[in-house]
């Protein structure tokens, strides 16, 4: 198969061909293509396009999720064939929605896009107290912490979390990124976060700059 296979795989993921992807990838494995290139230039590149399309309202959450499922199906076939260092994640990211907030649609999309970009994502869920967060972050020691909030009333919890990281001597050991409908860059700077993502696609770009 010529190098056009990368475009074919990209197209299959962008268009959510979840029924066809396994056959396509199986054939490429048989053809002995460069699997690392397939992941980076085919699959991850496809998810970047998906993220852009979502940010531009060309596609919506369902289409984005099905693209992610499509990628995952392909990835599941490839991963067992990779050598150790090739399966290393780009970094570990802990995600959560802060205390007083149970909204998680946005956070879950960010999770999915980060995983698609090759990060290991550990999602601690919603309504997470500062104490719970500190305990888990101490244990996991992530490269990046992502905090989400939908409610204006729960935004102050983000600052409390960052202050607590500081007090525990953990703040300098990880980058902190924040997001959610009421959050903006100015707020992120004011509370001492390292960055802000307006959507899942921006969150991925931001995370890449941190590792």
């Amino acid at each position, binding site marked *: 198969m010529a190098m056009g296979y990368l475009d074919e795989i990209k197209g299959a993921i962008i268009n959510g061909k979840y029924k066809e992807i396994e056959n396509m990838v199986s054939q490429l494995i048989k053809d002995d293509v460069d699997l690392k290139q397939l992941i980076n230039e085919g699959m991850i590149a496809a998810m970047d396009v998906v993220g852009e399309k979502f940010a531009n309202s060309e596609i*919506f*959450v369902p289409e984005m*999720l099905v693209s992610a499922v499509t990628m995952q199906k392909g990835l599941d076939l490839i991963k067992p064939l990779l050598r150790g260092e090739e399966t290393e994640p780009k970094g570990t990211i802990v995600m959560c929605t802060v205390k007083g907030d149970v909204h998680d*649609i*946005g956070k879950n999309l960010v999770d999915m896009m980060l995983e698609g970009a090759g990060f290991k994502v550990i999602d601690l869920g*919603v309504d997470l107290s500062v104490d719970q967060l500190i305990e888990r972050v101490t244990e996991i020691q992530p490269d990046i912490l992502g905090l989400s909030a939908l409610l204006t009333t729960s935004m102050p919890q983000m600052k409390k979390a960052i202050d607590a990281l500081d007090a525990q001597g953990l703040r300098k050991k990880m980058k902190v990124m924040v997001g959610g*409908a*009421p959050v903006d860059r100015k707020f992120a700077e004011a509370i001492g976060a390292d960055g802000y993502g307006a*959507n899942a696609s921006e969150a991925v770009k931001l995370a890449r700059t941190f590792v």
Partner: protein
Amino acid sequence: MGSQPDFENIRIAAKHKEGKRVPLCEVLVEYPIQSQFLGRPVTSSDLEAQLEFWIKAGYDFIPLSVGMMNPGKVTEESSISKVIREIMLKDTPDAEDKKSWNLEYTHFIDNRADFENFPWDIAEKLDFSKFYKIKDLLPEKMKVIAVSGKIFTLTWMLMGFNNFAMSLIMDEQLVADVFRKVAEIQFKALEEIFGMSHVGAVWVVDDIAFGTGPMISPQAFRDHVFPWYREMAKRCHDKDLLFLMHSDGNLTALMEDIIDMGVDVLQPIDPTCMNIVEVKKTYGDRLCLVGNVSNELLRSGTQADVEERVKYLIKNVGPGGGYCIGSGNSVPDWAKFENYMAMRESAITYGEYPIRL
């Protein structure tokens, strides 16, 4: 307000005409705010106190919920939550943990078997007692707005958002069937409401957009959700009732659909992502607008800030009718009470037609 409630004020606004004043309009004012206003506790079971609030605060209607879900604290008080909780209490030791039954934390329909096994027959038993009780308490010209018909939100909450979204493409028939079942139950509630002469309107409270735009594609809404609303609007109009809709988020991409399916009144024109003056210019001859006083302003602003915002809205959106003053969502218990009062009092002071601002 100095005048008696008169639902005709809302009807005139809904026809894009100037009545006596720009009406006040909210889908929900939480009980702590109502309590502060009356100076005594108002509770969910005290219908007389609730009615007293809506009359004295200057509204022309009282919103009453019926259906599988209520607005505001959506899931803890709703009948669907009670149904789910009872099931969980029977089967699961940790049923007292709200994360096991509250739809904000969990979901119940992953697949066809879950759909078939869901206790729809129990879920469709709805309580209309408030609607009957209030009939004899209402002032002559005041009406009830029935808050009902939530179809999109309940469907995705029952399925979980990610599962719902993926199934929309990967198992479309299952999603269509859940929509149908939910809609049938909501329509059943409406049929009972339509027989009540003291009900003046139906208000669908169903968030369909994020701040960035529609939660699913406009086409998916056209295929699966809007036909139900179209039918609901038709049945309302056949009974000479108004059809109101609430949705958070940026509805710009859906505005033509919303008008086309028969929505008379749209609330709250989310101030975090929509420009109500532009919406009025573009759609004001076909749609009555409600709200847009930001909840964040009600929480963190000063009374003077709120007054300025209300004056701006009355001046720029009020002329010609087709506008009612209200919050940017609902009035939550975390709004400053004095800011709620400032919104209300500014509307009374500056909202008389013709507008003189």
